[in-house]
C-alpha cells in the first residue's frame, strides 16, 4: 500500500470502522480523546520544562502558572480518566459477560469529560487562572491575582467532569448488579458484596468458603470506583465552596479571610485528593496488573485471595492516609502526622509491594513468554511504581519531609515517575492488548515505532524524574521559578529527558493513526451502524 493509502485507510486497510459495535465505538472515542488530552499535557509539560531552564519569550509568569494549574488536571481528568473510564466501561461487561447497563449514560460520561476538560483548560489559557495547583486553593481566596470570572468557568469545567464521573460510577455499579433482559434474576446484593469485599471478609471467618461472584479485576474496578465517587463528591463540594467566594467577588463583596479555617480546608482537600492519588489510582493499577498478567499468561493469578484482601486494605488505607500531605503544617496534630502521615502511608509500600510480587510471580509461572508490547509495557509500569512508591514513603517521613516537602523531589521521582512510568505504561499495556479486540483485528503499522515508543517513554520518564529529583535534593522548589539559572544543569537534562517523552508520544500517535487510518479515526466518531448492545460483533 502507498503511504497515502495507509494514512487514509490504515495498515493493509484492515480496520473497518463500520464493523464496530456501539460499545467498541464508545470505548475507542474515550481512548482517542484521552490520547489527545495526553498530548496536551505532554506539550504543556515541555513548555514548563523549557521555562524552568529559561523563560520562554511571549509567555508571562502568570501564563506559566496557569499552565501549571491546568496541566495535571488535563492529564488526570482529560486523559487518564477518559482512557480508564472507557476501558472499564468495556471491561466490566466483558468480564461479567453481560451488556453495559446504559450505553447512553456512557456516551454522556464521554461528552462531559471531553467538554468539561476543554472548558477548564480554556478558562486557564485565556484568563490565566492559577490560584493553586490541582484545585488546591487554601481559602482565603486572593482575587487581586486572579479573575473570578475565569475561575468560575474553570470550576464549571471541573464540575462537568465530575458529573460525568458520577455517571460512570452509576454505570459501573448498575452493570455489576442489574439483570439483563431475558436473564435469570441476578443476586444484586450478593454481587455488590462480592465486588466490595464483604463476602471475601466473611470467608475469612467462615468454615463454608463461598465462591467469589465477581472476578478479581471487577472487584478492583468496583473498589476503585468507590474512591472515584467519594472524590467526585469532594471536588464538587469544594468547587461550590470556591464558587461562593467567586460570585461574591464578582458582586463586589470580599468574603472574610477567616470565614473558613485554612487548616481544616487543607485537611478536607487532601483527604479528597488522596482518594485519587493514594486510592483509586493504586487500586485500579493493581487490578489492571492482575488482569493483564492473567490475560498475557492464561494462568490463574498467584495468591488470588491475598490479592483481593490487599485491594480492600488499599481502599481503607486511601481513606486514612491524607495527613502525609500535612507533615510540614505545624498546627496539624502530631498524632495525625505519625499515624496517618507515616504509619498508614507505609501500608502502601505493603499493598503495592504485594501487587508487584503477585503480578511478577504470575508472569513467571508461564515462562517462556514472548516479549510482546503488552508485556513490555506492563513490566515498565511495574518498574515505575517500584521506583515511585518508595520515593513517596521516604517523603512521608517526619524527618525527611522537613527537607523534601514542596521540592522537585516530590513532583519528580514520586509524582511524575508514578504517573508517567507507572500508570501511563500500565495504560499503554492495556491499550496495546485491547487494540486488536476493540478494532476487530486492525494491524499495527510498525513494531519498530512501538519499540521506540517503549524505550523513549521509559527512559524519558525515569530520566526526567531523576533529574528533577536531583534538583529537589539540592533545594529546588516546585511551583516556583528560578530566573538566574540556579538549577540549569538539572533542568536542561530534565528537559532533554522530557523531550524523549514527547517523541515517544508522537511515535505512538503516528503509529496508531497509520494503523487505523484517518478515515478510521473519523469513522470512530460517526454513529454506529448496528444497534446491538453486544460488546463485539457477532462472529460470521
Amino acid at each position, binding site marked *: 500500500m502507498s503511504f497515502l493509502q495507509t494514512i487514509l485507510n490504515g495498515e493493509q486497510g484492515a480496520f473497518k470502522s463500520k464493523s464496530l459495535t456501539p460499545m467498541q465505538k464508545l470505548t475507542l472515542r474515550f481512548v482517542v480523546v484521552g490520547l489527545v488530552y495526553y498530548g496536551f499535557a505532554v506539550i504543556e509539560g515541555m513548555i514548563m520544562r523549557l521555562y524552568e531552564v529559561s523563560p520562554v519569550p511571549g509567555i508571562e509568569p502568570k501564563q506559566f*502558572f496557569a499552565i501549571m494549574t491546568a496541566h495535571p488536571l488535563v492529564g488526570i481528568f482529560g486523559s487518564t480518566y477518559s482512557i480508564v473510564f472507557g476501558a472499564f466501561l468495556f471491561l466490566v461487561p466483558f468480564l461479567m459477560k453481560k451488556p453495559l447497563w446504559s450505553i447512553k449514560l456512557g456516551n454522556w460520561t464521554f461528552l462531559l469529560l471531553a467538554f468539561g476538560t476543554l472548558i477548564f483548560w480554556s478558562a486557564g489559557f485565556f484568563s490565566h487562572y*492559577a490560584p493553586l495547583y490541582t484545585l488546591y486553593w487554601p481559602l*482565603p481566596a486572593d482575587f487581586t491575582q486572579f479573575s473570578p470570572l475565569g475561575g468560575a468557568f474553570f470550576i464549571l469545567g471541573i464540575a462537568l467532569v465530575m458529573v460525568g464521573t458520577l455517571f460512570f460510577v452509576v454505570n459501573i455499579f448498575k452493570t455489576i448488579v442489574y439483570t439483563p433482559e431475558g436473564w435469570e434474576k441476578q443476586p444484586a446484593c450478593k454481587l455488590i458484596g462480592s465486588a466490595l469485599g464483604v463476602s471475601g471478609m466473611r470467608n475469612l471467618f467462615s468454615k463454608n468458603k463461598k465462591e467469589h461472584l465477581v472476578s478479581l479485576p471487577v472487584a478492583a474496578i468496583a473498589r476503585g470506583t468507590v474512591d472515584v465517587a467519594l472524590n467526585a463528591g469532594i471536588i464538587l463540594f469544594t468547587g461550590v465552596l470556591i464558587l461562593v467566594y467567586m460570585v461574591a467577588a464578582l458582586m463586589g463583596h470580599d468574603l472574610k*479571610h477567616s470565614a473558613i479555617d485554612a487548616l481544616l480546608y487543607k485537611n478536607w482537600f487532601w483527604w479528597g485528593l488522596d482518594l485519587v492519588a493514594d486510592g483509586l489510582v493504586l487500586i485500579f493499577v493493581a487490578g489492571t496488573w492482575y488482569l493483564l498478567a492473567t490475560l498475557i499468561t492464561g494462568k490463574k493469578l498467584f495468591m488470588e485471595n491475598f490479592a483481593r484482601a490487599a485491594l480492600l486494605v488499599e481502599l481503607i488505607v486511601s481513606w486514612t492516609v491524607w495527613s502525609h500531605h500535612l507533615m*510540614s503544617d*505545624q498546627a496539624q496534630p502530631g498524632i495525625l502526622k505519625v499515624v496517618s502521615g507515616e504509619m498508614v502511608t507505609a501500608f502502601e509500600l505493603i499493598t503495592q509491594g504485594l501487587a508487584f510480587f503477585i503480578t511478577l510471580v504470575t508472569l513467571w509461572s508461564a515462562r517462556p513468554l514472548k516479549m510482546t508490547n503488552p508485556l513490555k509495557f506492563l*513490566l515498565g509500569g511495574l518498574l515505575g511504581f517500584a*521506583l515511585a512508591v518508595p520515593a513517596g514513603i521516604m517523603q512521608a517521613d*517526619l524527618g525527611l519531609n522537613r527537607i523534601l516537602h514542596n521540592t522537585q523531589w516530590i513532583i519528580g521521582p514520586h509524582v511524575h515517575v508514578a504517573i508517567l512510568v507507572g500508570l501511563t505504561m500500565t495504560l499503554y499495556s492495556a491499550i496495546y492488548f485491547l487494540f486488536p479486540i476493540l478494532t476487530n483485528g486492525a494491524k499495527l503499522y510498525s513494531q519498530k515505532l512501538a519499540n521506540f515508543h517503549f524505550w523513549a517513554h521509559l527512559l524519558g520518564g525515569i530520566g526526567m524524574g531523576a533529574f528533577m529529583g536531583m534538583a529537589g535534593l539540592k533545594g529546588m522548589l516546585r511551583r516556583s521559578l528560578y530566573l538566574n539559572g540556579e538549577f540549569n544543569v538539572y533542568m536542561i537534562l530534565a528537559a532533554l529527558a522530557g523531550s524523549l517523552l514527547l517523541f515517544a508520544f508522537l511515535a505512538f500517535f503516528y503509529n496508531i493513526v497509520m494503523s487505523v487510518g484517518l478515515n478510521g479515526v473519523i469513522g470512530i466518531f460517526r454513529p454506529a451502524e448496528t444497534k446491538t448492545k453486544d460488546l463485539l460483533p457477532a462472529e460470521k
Partner: protein
Amino acid sequence: MIDSNTVLTGQTLAYTFYVLAIMSLMGWFAFKVTREGKSNVVKPALFYSWVIFLIALGVSIHIVTYNTIPWSPIDLNRREIKADRVFDITVSDHKFHLPAEKLTIQCHEKVMFNVTSADLTYGFGLFRHDNSMVFQMQVVPGHLNDILWQFDKPGVYSIRSTEYSGPKGVDMIEKDVVEVVGCETSAN
C-alpha cells in the same frame, strides 16, 4: 545537630542504591521470563517472607529516621523544649516582616521561629547560599506556625517562601537575613 545536607546525602545514597537494584532486578526478570526455566512454581513460603519483609521495612524506616534524624523528636516535642531565642515573624501581602533587619543566632542555640500569616497560605524556609534547603514549614493563616531548630555551623541564610501563593510568591525571598555566629571556638 547533624546538618540537613548530611541527611540528604544519606538519602541520596540509599535511594540510588535501591534504584540500581530494582532496575537490575527488572532487567533480569524481563530477560529470564522469555526463557525456558527449571521451575515455574513459586512456593507460598516466599510470598509470606515477602509480606513479612514489607511490614518490617514499612515500620522500621520511620523508627530508624526518628532515632537518627535529630530534628524529628525535637519537632514533635518542641512545645516542651525551652528555646534559647525566639523570632516572631509575620507575613502579609506576599512579604515577610522580620523583627530585625538581620536575625543573628549564636552557635548551638535552639531557635524558635514563630511565623504567622495575615492573609494567604505561604511557606517559610531557610536556604544556604547554594540554594540548598536547611528546613521549611507551611505558614497557614489563623494558626501558629512554629519550628524549633538548632544551629551548629556558622553560616548566612536566606528566607524564602516554600509554598506557591500565586505568581507574586516567586519574589518572596529575604536574602542573607539570618546569620549564625560564634562557632569558631566550638568543636565543629
